[in-house]
């Protein structure tokens, strides 16, 4: 039942090769390649509208690129769909919470599809991200930062080895920012992989990889 026990073999590897995406008339991603290894974090940054979110969605498998491919442990994610998805947790720009369910229920139904998680575990995850007190409030009434924290708790509770996070620092107060950094560090310590979009420099007390998208 310990988080560390569920962590991946050190061989885990995410690669993306020469990703091309057009949106409308715009060639948004022009041959982006990247690689994330076990225990490493890739910080994705660049001006607004350069395609960071688009790239993350391609990597999550939500968007099929016009060219190029994404591989997990050497196999294209389309083929190894189930393994890939159970090893991955994605947090988008929006918190992706059902407004009418409580924070806890949101976690239960989202995490429950990937692994059996007891209620105490879920509550602990919410506690960890600082929204234990909101566990039984409907997501509708939560503040922007609280929603973001619940989304982070969902990532945490999924115990995935690959984290794909789209601006996890947005809307968070200073303690929230520190919290996300700490969670990321612990995740990397466990041998996890992370791909994080953020507009400011990440200070994690360890070396990280950086990839800049330019307009």
């Amino acid at each position, binding site marked *: 039942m310990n988080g560390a026990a569920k962590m991946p073999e050190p061989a885990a590897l995410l690669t993306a090769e020469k990703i091309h995406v057009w949106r409308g008339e715009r060639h948004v991603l022009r041959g982006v390649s990247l690689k994330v290894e076990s225990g490493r974090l890739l910080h994705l940054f660049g001006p607004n509208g350069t395609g960071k979110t688009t790239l993350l969605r391609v990597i999550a498998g939500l968007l099929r690129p016009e060219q190029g491919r994404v591989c997990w442990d050497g196999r294209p994610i389309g083929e190894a769909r189930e393994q890939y998805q159970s090893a991955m947790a994605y947090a*988008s720009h929006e918190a992706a919470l*059902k407004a009418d369910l409580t924070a806890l229920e949101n976690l239960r139904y989202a995490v429950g599809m*990937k692994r059996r998680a007891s209620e105490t575990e879920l509550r602990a995850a919410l506690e960890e991200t600082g929204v234990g007190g909101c566990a039984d409030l409907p997501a509708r009434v939560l503040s922007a930062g609280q929603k973001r924290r619940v989304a982070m708790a969902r990532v945490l509770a999924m115990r995935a080895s690959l984290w794909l996070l789209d601006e996890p620092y947005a809307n968070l107060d200073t303690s929230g920012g520190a919290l996300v950094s700490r969670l990321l560090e612990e995740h990397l310590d466990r041998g996890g992989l992370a791909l994080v979009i953020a507009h400011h420099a990440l200070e994690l007390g360890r070396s990280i990889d950086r990839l800049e998208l330019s307009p």
Partner: protein
Amino acid sequence: MSVGVLEAMSLVVRREMRLAFRRPDQLLQPLVFFLIVTTLFPLSLSPELSLLRDMAPGVLWVAALLSSLLSLETLFKGDAEDGTLEQLTLSAQPLVAIVIAKTIAHWLLSGAALVLMSPLVATALAIPVGAFPTMLASLALGTLTLSWLGAIGAGLTVGLRRGSVLLSLIVLPLAMPLLIFGASATDRAIGGEGSAGALYFLAALCVFTCTLAPFAAAAALRITLE
């Protein structure tokens, strides 16, 4: 520790139930609609019972069809808008299973409720009690088939800008046979004639869609979600 398909499906069904009871309007909406359509009709006619009885099967079935259709629009839409559908598709569970679970939940929450309520409406429409079994059976089969057809339509149209119109355009032609056979079964039962033929046909249609539609709906969803 990983979650089996059946377990995941039951989780989805429970989620839908919880949501529905948290938002009773989604639950009541089709029923209220059904009630209202059937109440309004007699009002707009001169109050002759014979005319009413002639129309009753038509009113009943059209109302059932429409109220089913209305609730189908929201089958995937809410989830698509708040981003939870993305989370569901990334949940390492087969999309078909998710679609099946969601559709079953939808039928339990709209179709089944509608069938249970139909005797009340039927009484108000002066349908004789003797015709109730046929009516109930045909409505149950019909709404279930319709939920499956609707799932295909909803899958194809979620996220599309012209979603709702397309949904009606896609589903209604498919639903036409349902309406004709369902109404005629009820009609014959009211007239005291045998309606087994129409019922068998409805049952066959239902089995047919139940086996094929989940795959079609999942494929449709995959196409639109890309």
